[in-house]
């Protein structure tokens, strides 16, 4: 196996990198792919908590870097989804304890264990960001449709391109179709027009994500949520499927739409 390394990053913090990483990981694994999700947010680890695996962490990324544990031993296997594994971050070190070369080395080792290695980047554009970017074959950029987040995303596009990596693909998170419909939130087209990169998925604002995160059960594990469907679509695209983008700028309004949404048939209010 020679897994592909995909780094999930953003400019502004708190826009949904960790949520995106965990859920795309679940979605890819549920398609039968082998996936390692890597927490590169050293010192502020939370991918383990979002995934509900915090009690099973024994070794972490720093142990692998220092040769204390092999990559194989450090991987935590998620029992809910066969093929899904986590490499946790060390809560007691900091970003400068690892350098980009070491990060590349660890991720290269992980290629042997999975089809996809998803790296959850920390916020910011300093050392932690450079560490997460170094091993990437491909970059996913998460933003919300807000002025500050899009502005910072633009900065990151420049940094990714300057590093010689291909331009990132966009995950537009926390879209509220009702607000877009009445003109009080930038639409997908607005954001793409400004950033000029390709989009890989649009994730709606979804209260289920909050509940799911509280329980440590990524929303994609359960069927029926709109955000979960969005993550499945992103996973399918990463997996090479050419899925069309559905019209999700309009909330489900008609009775039929609402019924089909209820039964997860994805009517015109369906999401990508």
């Amino acid at each position, binding site marked *: 196996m020679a897994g592909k390394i995909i780094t999930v990053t953003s400019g502004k913090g708190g826009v949904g990198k960790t949520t995106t990483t965990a859920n795309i990981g679940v979605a890819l694994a549920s398609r039968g792919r082998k996936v390692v999700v890597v927490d590169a947010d050293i010192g502020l680890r939370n991918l383990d908590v979002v995934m509900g695996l915090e009690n099973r962490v024994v070794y972490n990324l720093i142990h692998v870097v220092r040769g204390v544990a092999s990559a194989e031993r450090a991987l935590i296997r998620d029992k809910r989804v066969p093929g899904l594994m986590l490499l946790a971050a060390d809560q007691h070190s900091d970003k400068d304890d690892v350098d980009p070369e070491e990060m590349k080395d660890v991720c290269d080792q992980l290629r042997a264990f999975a089809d996809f290695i998803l790296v959850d980047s920390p916020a910011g554009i300093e050392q932690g960001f450079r560490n997460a970017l170094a091993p990437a074959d491909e970059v996913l950029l998460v933003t919300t*449709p*807000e*002025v500050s987040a*899009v*502005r910072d995303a*633009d*900065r990151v596009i*420049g940094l990714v391109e300057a590093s010689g990596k291909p331009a990132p693909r966009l995950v537009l998170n926390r879209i509220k179709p009702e*607000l*877009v419909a*009445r*003109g*009080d*939130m*930038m*639409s997908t087209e*607005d954001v793409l*027009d*400004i950033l*000029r990169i390709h989009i890989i998925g649009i994730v709606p604002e979804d209260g289920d994500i909050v509940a799911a995160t509280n329980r440590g059960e990524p929303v994609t594990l359960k069927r029926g949520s709109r955000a979960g469907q969005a993550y499945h679509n992103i996973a399918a695209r990463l997996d090479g499927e050419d899925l069309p983008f559905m019209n999700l700028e309009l909330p489900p309004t008609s009775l039929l739409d609402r019924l089909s949404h209820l039964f997860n048939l994805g009517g015109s209010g369906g999401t990508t």
Partner: protein
Amino acid sequence: MSFFDRLLGRDKAPRSGSVARERLKLVLEYDRSQLTAAELEAIRDELIETLSHHVSIDRDEVVITLQRDGRLVAEIPLDRRRRRTVDRP
């Protein structure tokens, strides 16, 4: 403003979504350049200074922007009322 005003397109104030878009476009113009706002302002002044030796310029309308592809674009409207105020020897 009533629902009908909006329906009939009488709503003149732009919605916040398009305000956000326009603000972003402006702020990114500066972000994407290595030039600071002050430097752009200086270029603008010097350009006006040089050009006004030859033509009369509507100074307040001169706009200089830096595109993402690295091109500096200047819009320089001539003052139509006074095309030739500058006396030449």
